[in-house]
C-alpha cells in the first residue's frame, strides 16, 4: 500500500518537475513558478544564505515547508518527492542488474554525505559557494537543461526532419512538427558548452547504482544529509511487531541500508520513509506509525571526519580565492541583465541553469561558463553574443532565478540595464575593412533610437575607386550590450563588432 502511494507520489512529482522545466520558456505561462523545486531545497536556501550573508527572502517558503515535513514525517522528501531520487530509482531498476544480496551492504561511505555537507557549509561561510555541485535539484535541473533536453530535441527533430523528406507524408509531418513546437519542442536546437561534462557527471551518479542502490542518496547527497539531521526525531516511525521472523529481507531490500542488524531498529537519519520494508515483510510485522517508539538516530560523522571536511573546505577556499584572475576576463564576462555584483552573483548562483534554459527559448545568449571566469565561476551563466543575443523585450532570466543572483526586473527597467558595451573591430568590420556598405548591426540594433549609427563618407579605395560608404559607430551611452549586433555580424569567424562587459550595470 505504502509502496504504491509512494510510487504515485514519485511519478507525480517527477512529472511536475519535468512540466515546470518545459514551462521555463517564452511565452512564460507556468503552472507554478518554474524555480519551485529549487526553492524547495533547504540546502539551496541555507547554502546561499551562508555564502551571501543574507537572510533568504520569503521566496524560500517551499524549503521551510520541506523542513517542517521532514521534522514530522522524516525524509519523505528523499523518498517521495526528490526528482533525482526518483530518477535514480528508475535507473537502478531498469539498467542495473538485480542482485540477490547475501549480506548487508557496506556502510563505509555513509559518512561522506555529512562530510560533504560540512565542506559545503564551511566553504559557503568563507564565501565560496560549492553547493551547486551537489544539490540534487540544482544538479538535475542543470542536467536537464544542459544535456537531456538538447539531446532529446536532437533525436526528435531528426525524426521529424527525416519524415519531411518523404514526399507523401511531408505535409502531415510538418503539421505534427508545428504542433509539437507549440509545447514540447523549441524552435531552435539548444546547444550548450559544458554539456558533455554535465552529462558525464550525471551518468556517473546513475552508474554508481551498480555499487549499491541509491548510492548517491545513501552516501553523497548533502541535501539528504541535511534533511537527515532534521529527521532525527521524526514522529512517523518504523515499528516492528513480534511477528518478525528475523528473515533479513527488509534489511536487504532497504534502498538506503537504514535497517540495523536486529531488524527492528532503523536509522531515522538514513530512512527515507519509502515503505519498501513494510511491503516486502511476509509476516506483515512492519508498519509506520506516529509515536515515540524506539529508533536509532545516528549521524555517522566522526569528529575526525568533521575536522577533515572543514579543513579540506578551507584549503579549497584559499586555493580558489588565491588563484590569479585573468584581468581581461573580469572585464569581459557578460552576465545576464540584473546580475548582482560579481562576488555576490557567484555567492548566490547555484548553477541550476534555469536562466540558461529560459533564455534558450528567446534570444539564447546565455551559456554555462567554462574557464572564462575562473574556477569560482565554473558553469555560471554568462552571455556569449556570438551564440545568441539578449532579447530587448525579454526579462525572463530574472524571473527564473531561484536565488536572486539575477534580479527580477520590470521590462522597462531591464531595457535600460546595461550588461555591456559593443565595440567595432575596424580591422574586421566590412565598411572599415573593405569600404563596402554593410550595416547589418545597425539594422538589428533594437534600441528605439539606435545605439549604432553611421556616418556617410566618400572614400577612395586601395584600387582607386571613389565610393560613398556608411561607416558605423557605437553610441556608448545608448548601447546596452544586448549583443544582437555581434550575433548577426556577417563577418565569418571573429566578428567585426563585439560586446564586452565594459560599463555593465551590476548594482545589488
Amino acid at each position, binding site marked *: 500500500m505504502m509502496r504504491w502511494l509512494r510510487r504515485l507520489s514519485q511519478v507525480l512529482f517527477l512529472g511536475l518537475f519535468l512540466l515546470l522545466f518545459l514551462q521555463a520558456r*517564452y*511565452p512564460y505561462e507556468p503552472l507554478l513558478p518554474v524555480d519551485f523545486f529549487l526553492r524547495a531545497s533547504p540546502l539551496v536556501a541555507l547554502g546561499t544564505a551562508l555564502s551571501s550573508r543574507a537572510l533568504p527572502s520569503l521566496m524560500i517558503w517551499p524549503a521551510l515547508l520541506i523542513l517542517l515535513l521532514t521534522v514530522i514525517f522524516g525524509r519523505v522528501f528523499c523518498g517521495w518527492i526528490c526528482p533525482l531520487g526518483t530518477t535514480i530509482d528508475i535507473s537502478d531498476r531498469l539498467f542495473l542488474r538485480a542482485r540477490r544480496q547475501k549480506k548487508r551492504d557496506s556502510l563505509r561511505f555513509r559518512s561522506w554525505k555529512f562530510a560533504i555537507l560540512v565542506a559545503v557549509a564551511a566553504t559557503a561561510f568563507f564565501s565560496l559557494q560549492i553547493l551547486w555541485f551537489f544539490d540534487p535539484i540544482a544538479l538535475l535541473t542543470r542536467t536537464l537543461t544542459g544535456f537531456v533536453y538538447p539531446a532529446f530535441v536532437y533525436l526528435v527533430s531528426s525524426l*521529424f*526532419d527525416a519524415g*519531411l523528406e518523404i514526399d507523401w507524408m511531408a505535409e502531415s509531418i*510538418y*503539421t505534427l*512538427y*508545428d504542433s509539437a*513546437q507549440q509545447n514540447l519542442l523549441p*524552435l531552435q536546437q539548444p546547444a550548450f558548452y559544458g554539456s558533455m561534462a554535465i552529462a558525464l557527471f550525471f551518468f556517473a551518479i546513475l552508474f554508481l547504482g551498480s555499487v549499491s542502490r541509491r548510492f548517491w542518496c545513501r552516501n553523497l547527497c548533502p541535501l539528504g544529509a541535511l534533511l537527515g539531521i532534521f529527521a532525527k526525531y521524526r514522529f512517523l516511525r518504523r515499528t516492528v511487531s513480534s511477528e518478525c521472523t528475523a528473515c533479513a529481507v527488509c534489511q536487504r531490500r532497504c534502498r538506503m541500508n537504514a535497517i540495523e542488524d536486529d531488524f527492528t531498529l532503523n536509522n531515522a537519519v538514513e530512512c527515507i520513509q519509502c515503505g519498501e520494508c513494510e511491503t516486502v515483510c511476509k509476516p506483515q510485522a512492519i508498519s509506520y506509525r506516529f509515536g515515540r517508539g524506539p529508533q536509532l538516530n545516528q549521524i555517522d560523522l566522526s569528529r575526525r571526519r568533521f575536522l577533515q571536511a572543514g579543513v579540506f573546505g578551507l584549503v579549497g577556499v584559499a586555493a580558489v580565492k588565491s588563484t590569479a584572475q585573468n584581468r581581461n576576463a573580469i572585464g569581459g564576462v557578460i552576465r545576464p541583465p540584473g546580475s548582482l555584483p560579481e562576488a555576490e552573483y557567484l555567492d548566490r548562483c547555484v548553477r541550476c541553469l534555469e536562466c540558461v534554459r529560459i533564455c534558450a*527559448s*528567446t*534570444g*539564447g545568449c546565455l551559456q554555462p561558463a567554462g574557464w572564462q571566469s575562473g574556477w569560482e565561476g565554473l558553469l555560471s551563466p554568462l552571455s556569449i553574443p556570438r551564440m545568441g543575443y539578449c*532579447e*530587448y*523585450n*525579454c526579462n525572463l532570466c530574472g524571473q527564473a532565478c531561484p536565488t536572486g543572483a539575477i534580479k527580477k526586473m520590470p521590462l522597462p527597467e531591464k531595457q535600460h540595464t546595461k550588461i555591456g558595451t559593443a565595440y567595432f573591430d575596424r580591422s574586421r568590420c*566590412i565598411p572599415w575593412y573593405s569600404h*563596402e*556598405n*554593410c*550595416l*547589418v548591426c*545597425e*539594422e*538589428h*540594433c*533594437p*534600441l*528605439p*533610437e*539606435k545605439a549604432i549609427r*553611421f556616418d556617410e563618407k566618400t572614400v577612395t579605395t586601395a584600387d582607386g575607386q571613389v565610393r560613398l560608404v*556608411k561607416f558605423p559607430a557605437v553610441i556608448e551611452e545608448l548601447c546596452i550590450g544586448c549583443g544582437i549586433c555581434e550575433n*548577426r*555580424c*556577417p563577418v565569418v569567424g571573429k566578428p567585426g563588432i563585439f560586446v564586452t562587459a565594459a560599463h555593465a550595470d551590476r548594482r545589488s
Partner: protein
Amino acid sequence: MQRINRRDFIKTGLTAAAGALLLPGAIAADSRPDLVVVSNGEPAELVRQAVEALGGIGRFVRPGQTVLIKPNIGWDRVPEQAANTNPDAVAQMVRMCVEAGAKTVRVLDRTCNQARRCYQRSGIEEAAKKAGAQVRHIIESRFQEIDIPAGELVKSWPVYRDVLESEVIINMPIAKHHSISGVTLGFKNFLGVLGSDRGALHRDFATKIVDINSALRPTLTIVDGYRVLLRNGPTGGNLQDVAVKKTVVAGTEPVAVDARAAGLLEVDWRDVDYLRIAEQRGLGKCLLEPARVKTIQLG
C-alpha cells in the same frame, strides 16, 4: 511557385492567341489596373478595396490553389510600432483567399528576432489563424537551393520549400525606413523566405536583392502603409517615428509597387538604388502608364 514548362507555355500561348482572335472584347475588358493605391481606411478595408480594384481576388486565386502569404513578421514588436505588417491586413488577405476557394493559405516568415516572439507579439499568428490560415514556423531543414540564372552576384540561394511549392505567392511587406536601401518594401521583404546567412547579402545590397527578386516573383504585392516607420527602421520601437498614413499600395508589378510605395516614406523612388537597377535589368517599370494605375480615396 509555378514552374512553366515549354509545352504548357505553348499551350497557354495558343489558347491566349485563339482567345484574342475569337474574342477581341476580352482584351478590351482587361482594363483592370495593375497598380492601385487605396487610402483613408482601416487596414482590412484598405486591403479589401485594393484587391477589388485590381479585379477581385479571383484574378489571383483560383479554387483549389495553394497560396502563400509572406508578411513581414521579422521583429519582436507590437503593431503600433510598425515594424511588422499589420495583422488585420494579413487576416483580411487570408480571408479573401479562403473565400476564393484556396486549398491552403499559408503564412510564414523567417524572422530576425526569435520567431515565437515575433509571431505572437506582431499579432499576425493569432489573426491569420483565426482567418483560416496555416501559420507555420520555419524549419531550417526545409530550404532548397535554387539557381538564379539572371543573378549578377547571387547565382544561387536556398529558398523555403513552401514558397517554391505554392501556386500563388502574395508578398505583404510593411513600408519602413531602412538604412542600407533607404526603404524596405516588397523586394526586401522577399528576403524573409531565404535560408542561410542573409547578412552576407548586405554587401552590394541593391544588386543582390534584385538578383533574388529576379528569381522569385510574387503573384501580387500588397504594401501595408497603414502605419509607416519613417526613421530608425527596420526595427523601430519609438512611436514618434511612426506615421499613420492609412494607405495600401498593391499591384502585380513588384517594381512599380515598390516605387510607388517609396513615396509613403517620403523617399523619391529615383533615389532608391535597387529600383533603378531592377528597371535597368528588365524586372519591370518603376512608373506604369496612367491607365494601369488607379487611386482610390475611401470614406
